[in-house]
């Protein structure tokens, strides 16, 4: 159970990022799928180089913000639709993440040594078809590569991870500490003048200009800020799971949305502080549902592969319910869809 809470909070931080873009700015940002992986890749990459995990996380957050900044620039300056801008950055990040990790998957090593298996023939000391190639003699002469030889030069000092994975509550403590401090920081920021403008942006983009700020600046700021959180979440997730993988961001946007919506069902919408806590609680609840479904779902013929369908159906039904409950919003939405259709440029 403790694992579900830990993972729910970590993933919930992504939920805060999704909440910022989807709910506050009213801009669906798909950069998330790439910046989550970027956070993981950068954090693990730096740790492997010997950096302190907290510093590594901070750098990952900055780079995540940069990814959001680029999405914002493509969106506002090149006038590309925000969805496409996000997809473009996400696609770029796929290649970048592989570059950062120097491969598709980067584990946090137990000790500081870079071992790799060479190839089958060297390890087993024989060519399985040596008789065919007619080089039996030379193979006999070649001794099997000794494993000790590889690790002799290794630096055996341990790598410092933020988490010890001992289920003794210390991981949970660190996670709660990080989550509550960033929520507090974000809350304080949203109370400042700039934060107030940001909060008003989603419902009234034109109003921003009356405060003397440009719409470009606010949307770029919002996208960057959201991806700072997503990268932090990705970095913590990689530390927590012991490795970063290029596919780790896949599906994060839907997971993030589901968490935001679960949180809203519990807390209601748009209460300043609760709005930020809601995705975290939503994350824990979402992970619990996921775990329950995986553990007991098969008894009613449910398969893990159905989870994505259910998540999407859940999001659709939440949207549908909120429309039925609130006829005023239905009209407002109609108007918005019309205006979106008329001025969306791709």
């Amino acid at each position, binding site marked *: 159970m403790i694992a579900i809470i830990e993972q729910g909070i970590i993933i919930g931080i992504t939920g805060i990022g999704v909440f910022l873009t989807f709910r506050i700015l009213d801009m669906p940002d798909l950069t998330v799928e790439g910046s989550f992986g970027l956070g993981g890749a950068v954090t693990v990459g730096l740790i492997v180089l010997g950096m302190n995990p907290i510093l590594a996380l901070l750098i990952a957050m900055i780079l995540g913000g940069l990814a959001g900044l680029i999405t914002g620039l493509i969106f506002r300056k090149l006038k590309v639709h925000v969805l496409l801008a996000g997809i473009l950055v996400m696609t770029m990040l796929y290649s970048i993440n592989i570059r950062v990790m120097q491969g*598709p*998957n980067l*584990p946090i090593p137990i000790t500081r040594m870079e071992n790799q298996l060479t*190839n*089958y023939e060297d390890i087993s000391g024989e060519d399985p078809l040596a008789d*065919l190639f007619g080089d039996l003699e030379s193979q006999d002469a070649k001794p099997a590569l000794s494993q000790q030889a590889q690790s002799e030069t290794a630096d055996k000092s341990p790598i410092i991870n933020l988490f010890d994975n001992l289920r003794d509550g210390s991981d949970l403590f660190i996670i709660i500490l990080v989550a509550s401090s960033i929520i507090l920081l974000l809350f304080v920021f949203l109370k400042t003048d700039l934060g107030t403008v940001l909060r008003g942006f989603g419902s009234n983009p034109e109003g921003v200009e009356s405060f003397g700020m440009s719409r470009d600046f606010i949307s770029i700021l919002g996208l960057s800020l959201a991806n700072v959180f997503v990268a932090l979440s990705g970095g913590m997730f990689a530390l927590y799971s*012991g490795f970063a993988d290029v596919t780790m961001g*896949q599906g994060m946007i839907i997971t993030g949305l589901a968490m935001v919506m679960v949180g809203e069902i519990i807390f209601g919408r748009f209460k300043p502080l609760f709005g930020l806590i809601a995705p975290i609680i939503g994350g824990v609840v979402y992970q619990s549902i996921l775990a329950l479904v995986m553990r007991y779902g098969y008894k009613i013929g449910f398969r893990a592969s159905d989870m994505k369908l259910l998540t999407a159906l859940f999001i659709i039904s939440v949207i549908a319910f909120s429309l039925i409950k609130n006829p005023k919003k239905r009209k407002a939405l109609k108007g918005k869809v019309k205006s979106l259709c008329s001025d969306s440029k791709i």
Partner: protein
Amino acid sequence: MKKHLAILVLMAIVLTVGLSMYRIGMTAIVEHPALDAVRQGILDQLGAYGLRIGEDFEELYQTAQGDMNTAVLIAKQFSESNLNLAVGISTPSAQACANAMRDIPVVFSAVTDPVGASLIENLGKNNSNVCGISDMTPVRTQIRLMKLIMPEAQTVGIIYNSSEANSVSIRNSAKETCDELGMDLVEIIGSNTSEMINALNAVVSTVDFIYIGTDNTAASSIAAISKSAKTVRTPIMAGDIDIARGGGVVGFGFDYYHAGLETGEIVYQLLTGVPVSQIESRLISADSLILYVDLDLADEIGLEIPENVMTRADIIVENGLEKEMNQ
């Protein structure tokens, strides 16, 4: 009163039966024929030792649907499920299990480079709770075999998905071998089927043969790959017999069912009380390696298979029939 006693006795029986059962958690990153075959091999091997599923052991099997978040969640769940041991099939699943569980044995399978993946420090015995079978395939032998069949071959096209850790280590071995043999290696990379086929079509006529290791994406795209290769009469060499069956002319390697059987062997040893530190992590044994030749396809694309290769073949496909050769 009697009724209560009966219920109590019944509960006690259920409890003791429940407790005497081994609990094994198995997880794979995705539902995939190769990974499913590993699982089947493990179960069959345990069955061969007389352990019956549902009576002697309970199997918790969950796939992560390609989602890292789910893979980690499954592993963490396993760590709280009173398991006797956990099996992680595929690199990310094994990594997630090894990271989540420090106090029970974790067996990995279908991991090409367990050392590079930080699962173990080196092959052989390790002083940790992790051991297993690497599905490293004899890349050098495979490419040399193809060079033996096609001595004039100069350019090899390797198809793989650059986001699969397994395939990247195979690519590195292939590059090394091609350098040794003085051949050029052309990389045909795609992160999904359509990208892969596009990349293949762009270069297929310039390569002498196509090499596929144990790449999962290539395995799922093998029908399209083989169709594209056949039109320009380029042979495919596969490092995995399941892929070879899907459209390779020559295959040399193992099938994942055998990898599962060997993993099952380790699982059985652990269940009978052998400590993890006494179990050697190793490659798939050379006995499980199979040489596969599809003569029908060879005829069709005009490739001649030398007599000495034919005599070594374990499986020959001729006139649409697969024959197992006993040696």
